[in-house]
Structures are given as C-alpha cells and as structure tokens.
C-alpha cells in the first residue's frame, strides 16, 4: 500500500467536483457549504497548547460537502488560525467516502479526522469548551487528522455498534524525522443506545499505533523545551502531539439527559475519557504517559449553558539521557455560553492550571464568539 501518494491523488477529483458543480450550483441540495468564524480574546498563555493569548481567530473553517452521484460523498474543510505569533492555514479534511457499500460498510480515503476517542472525530466548532481537554492537546496535538485510508462498519444490531480501522501516513502525529509509509494505524469501536426517553449513552474504545521514529522526535522536542522563546511559539497552534509513545489506548463514555428527550430546551451531558500512552522510549524505566478528563455541561434554557471540566495529564519527560521525570498538569475549566441565535455562540471561560515539571502553567480568561454561515452542520451526539 503506497499511502504517501494518497494526499496528492485525492484532492484532485475533489477539487474538480467542487469547482465545477459546488460553486456553480451552490443551491443544489447535494452541495452543502458552511463556514464558521471563531474569534476570541485570551488573557494569558497557558501550558500545553491551547490558544495563544491576545486577540485572534481560533478554529475558523470553510467546509464544502458534495454527493457525487450515488457513489461517494466528498468533503473539503479548510481551516485558518490567526494570532499574535503566527498565521496558519491548513486543509483539515479532503476525503471521499463511499455511500453504496453493502452491510453497513463505508470506506474513506484522503485526509480526515481519525476515529479516536469521543472528541477527535468531531469538528472543533461544536465543542463545549474553548480548548480541547489536556489529553487531546498533549497526546494528539489538539486533534489528529492525517492522510490515509479507513474502513468503518455499523453492525445491524439493536443497539448501535460501530467498528472502524484506518491506516495513516503518520505525518501529522508530530515532528518526527522519519517513519514507514504506514506511519500510524487505528482501531476503534463504539456502542450506544437510549436508556429511556430522556437518557442516552455512548461508550468507546480506541487504539492508535504510532510507528514513526519516536526517539529522533523526542530529542528534537527536548531541545525545543530548553529554549524558552521556542516554547512560547509552541504554545499556540499545535503541530502535533507533545508526548508520544508507540501505543495509545483510549476509553471514552458519554451520558446525556434531557427531560422527555427535548434537548433543545434542557440538556445535561457528562463525558469522560481516559488515555494511556505506552512504550514512550526504548530506555528502561521510562514509564508511561496517561491522563483523563471529565466534563459536565448543562443547558438550562435554549440559549444558555454552563459547564465544568477537570482534567489531568501525567507525562514522563527525559531530562537527561535515560533519566525520566514526572511532568504533571492539572486543569480546571469553567464556562458559560449564550446562543443568541442557533448560528451564534458567545462563550466565557476561565481556566486554572497547576503543574509540576511542566512550564508555563497559568490561569486565563477567554471570551469566544462563534458564528456559522450556510448549511447547518449536523449536530452529532
């Protein structure tokens, strides 16, 4: 399998389709164009990624979806992030997905968000907090998308049961110097159902195998961390995971409650995820990274919601050749959000961090304004 050629191959039919039919027949039911602008002000920089302080644009995206005959759907998502330190543009998604395979199967090829944990497959603008949990920032570089090929099956069972597998180039896992052509692969399963009219749940297990040359990457990272100016830059848009290992295991669960199932007016949602990253170094006694978070968000009126999240990240950092020390970070986040209309969100968030062995911990207040245009993006669970 020559995965390296995929990113080159896939965008072309996609661009052609979007260029010809997408823009000309923008009103066509089969083409959906949406844009989300994410403007924010953050009072201070915090440790481990997240957003740069000051005024900026967060995850601002333009997304086009198109159905090609009955066979494929195509999606292209371009993102931009702008802040005092850097301006970033990237293609986050550019994939084709089959629509007509039997037995609940679908195959995706191109660049897409890996099916990992509860949040990774979801678009950031739907998040309940301004920044992703620590475990996502530390172990997945906010969210992991890459060029690859994935297969997914939904089984015809009474309760929802999905299995998926994907192979990626691994180029977006971090700043690794080299790796095999299949630099990463993933496996995931999700199950879920309703408990009654008011309650539903979903739980998942996922696994990421990182086959990149981890050791070279770590040394590079280590040098960067000694250089404080460099670290400041690193705090902005994440270019990959800060902490890596050969194997990553994720367990996630979410439970939602809304009276009579009318989630527009009231909803409580509680989610939790646990990450474990092993084989971080060939050195004996290196140990493992792990981390978890739990979040509760309560929408008490159609326009208002409040939320709290607590997360920990316990990493092992190599301070000198073969000597590993704990690097721990704890983060508590409080947020309140107001949706004046269903296309707009104003969110105020307070973040408190405690750290041991990780620099740059701070407290921050963030004000975020999100507005979306065009087709509604579907509200996923």
């Amino acid at each position, binding site marked *: 399998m020559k995965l390296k050629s995929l990113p080159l191959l896939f965008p072309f039919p996609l661009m052609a389709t979007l260029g010809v039919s997408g823009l000309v027949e923008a*009103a066509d*039911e*089969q083409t*959906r164009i949406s844009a989300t602008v994410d403007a924010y002000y953050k009072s201070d920089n915090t440790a481990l990624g997240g957003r740069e302080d000051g005024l900026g644009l967060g995850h601002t995206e333009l997304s086009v979806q198109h*159905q090609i005959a*009955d066979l494929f*759907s195509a999606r292209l998502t371009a993102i931009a992030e702008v802040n005092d330190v850097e301006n970033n543009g990237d293609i986050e998604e550019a994939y084709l*997905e089959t*629509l*007509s*395979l*039997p*037995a*609940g*199967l*679908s195959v995706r090829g191109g660049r897409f968000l890996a099916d990992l944990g509860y949040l990774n497959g979801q678009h950031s603008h739907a998040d309940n907090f301004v920044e992703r949990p620590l475990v996502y920032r530390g172990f997945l570089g906010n969210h992991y998308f890459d060029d690859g090929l994935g*297969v*997914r*099956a*939904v*089984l*015809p*069972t*009474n*309760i*929802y*049961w*999905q*299995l998926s*597998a994907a192979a990626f180039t691994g180029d977006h896992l971090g700043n690794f110097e080299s790796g095999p052509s299949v630099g990463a692969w993933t*496996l995931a399963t*999700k*199950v*879920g*159902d*309703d408990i009654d*009219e008011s309650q*539903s*749940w*979903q739980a998942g297990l996922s696994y990421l195998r990182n086959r990149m040359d981890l050791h070279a990457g770590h040394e590079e990272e280590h040098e960067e961390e000694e250089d404080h100016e460099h670290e400041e830059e690193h705090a902005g848009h994440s270019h990959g995971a800060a902490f890596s290992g050969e194997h990553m295991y994720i367990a996630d669960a979410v439970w*939602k409650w809304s009276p009579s*199932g*009318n*989630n*527009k*007016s009231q909803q409580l949602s509680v989610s939790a995820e646990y990450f474990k990253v092993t084989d971080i170094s060939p050195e004996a006694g290196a140990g493992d990274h792990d981390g978890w978070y739990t979040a509760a968000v309560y929408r008490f009126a*159609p*326009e208002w919601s409040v939320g709290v999240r607590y997360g920990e990240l316990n990493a092992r950092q190599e301070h000198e050749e073969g000597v590993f020390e704990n690097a721990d970070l704890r983060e508590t986040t409080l947020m309140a959000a107001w949706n004046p*209309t*269903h*296309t*707009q969100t104003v969110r105020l968030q307070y973040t408190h961090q405690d750290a041991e062995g990780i620099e740059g911990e701070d407290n921050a207040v963030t004000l975020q304004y999100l*507005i979306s*245009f065009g*087709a*509604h993006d*579907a*509200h*996923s*669970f």
Partner: protein
Amino acid sequence: MRTVSKLLGLVCVWLVAQPANALNIFACEPEWAALARALAPQADIYSATHVYQDPHYIEARPSLIARLRRADIAFCSGAALEEGWLPALQQRASNPAVREGAPGMFYAADVVSTIEKHQEALVGRGHVHAEGNPHLHLDPDRVQTIARHFSERLMQLDPEQAAQYRLTFQVWQKHWKQKRLQWKQQALALSGKSVVVQHSTFSYLLRWLKIKPVADLEPAPGVSPTLSHLDTLTQQLKAEKPMAIMHNWYQSDNSAHWLAKRVSVPVLALPSTVSEKDGISTLDQLFDHLIAELRSAQL
C-alpha cells in the same frame, strides 16, 4: 487487513441470520409513522421523534443510527426540517437503502408544494428556509397526496405485496375523504377567526381552516419570544382581540400565558403531531382533536 476480512465475515453471518420479514420503516416524525402504519400495517415502524420534541433540534443519537442502519425506507418531512440531524444519521448509518436520492429515502416535501418560502438569509433568520414550511402533515389535502405517493413507493420497494398496499391505500383514502368533509363542516364556525401563534407549526392547518394568524410570539422564526416583542404584541392585540393564543406541546407556555393575562384571551396548548400515549394515535384523530380544541376556544 485481516481485521477487515474477519469483520466482513462477522457482518455476513449477521445478515444471513436476519429474517427477511416485514418492511422496516424509519419515520423521522410521529405523523409519518402514523401514516405508514395506516398504509403498511404489517411493517415494522419506528418514529425517531415524539410530540414533546422539537423536530428541528434532534441529536444524531446512537439509537437513531442503529435504527436507520436497519431501515428499508425512511419517511421524513424534508424541506430542511431534519437538516440538522438526518444527514448525520445517514452518513453514520452507512445504509445505501436510505441515502440521499435512493428510492428508500422518501420526503413528503418532494411530492407536494410548500408555503411560506423565504429567501434564505445568512444570519439571524432562525429556522426558516427557502424550502418553505415543512410542517406539511397539518394540511388534510396535502396528507392525501403524500399518502398516495408513499403507497406507490411501498409498491415499488416491496412489489410482492403491491396489491395489498393498493387496497389498503384505497380503503384509507375513502375514509380520509369522509373525514375531510366532516372537518370542513366543523371548520365553518372557525372561518375568519384570528389567533396568535408561536412558530409556524400550525400554518397549514390554519390556512385550511381559514383562520388568520395575526401575530407570532417569536420575534423571528425559530427565535424564542423576547419581552420587548411581547410588549409590542400586547399593544397590537388589545386593539384587535384574537380568538386564542396557540402554542404546541414541546414549547414552553410561559410567553403564551404572559401575553394571555394581559390581553385576556385563552391559551391553547395543542399537540403538533400524533401521540399514542395521549390517545391520539392516527392522523385523523389528530385533526379531530385540533379542530375540537379550536372550536372550544371559539365558544
């Protein structure tokens, strides 16, 4: 790729194990489940939503994905009513029978015209679309057309039982036409009356009954009532008293009562669709109930 082949094998076993019995129908809203039940009584029918839920805002819950995964036909309103959740279900259910454009994906709005078409504004317009008002099931004439088309779709997808579907539809239609005459008769007393609404849920019904909606509690469609807007309405309605203030069961009744107290008119809490546990399990029971409630307010 050994995992994939194992997985394929597993799925095949499942498929073979599944009995090829009744048609599996996924209805986006209870009204279409009720109509499907009338036209295909043997089918296995599931409604994704119920009367206490706002069908614009449904989450693509795991249970719904599992249901759509097993469906032979999906019966939905269309006209963008489900656009916030059905595409996500279709994408995640990976069921080619109900993908966009497949014969198994039936939208009511594809076979009848809609009213209240607006130019789509980019921001602020709330849930109103260029496609028009999607609450089509509250017009007895449109329901009849939708039923005919849906019955034809059933015959196309399940040709072995085509004769049965045709007969069932003919019986249903005869009954419906009688009911329609009866409702027209009952509506005479309501003709020309005015009401205050909350959202455009009942627009088709009011048109059919010749009742005028003179005001909407929502300042803009899909936007919750605001105090300043209610204040303006109070002034307007004191001059010209409506018959009632209507709201539906999934909406909060606070605004309706607030306004009712100030202009002293009755509040009508009405179901926007069928609800078996409230004793309204068919569409004709729904129209019976709605017309009786409106007539009681008029007295």
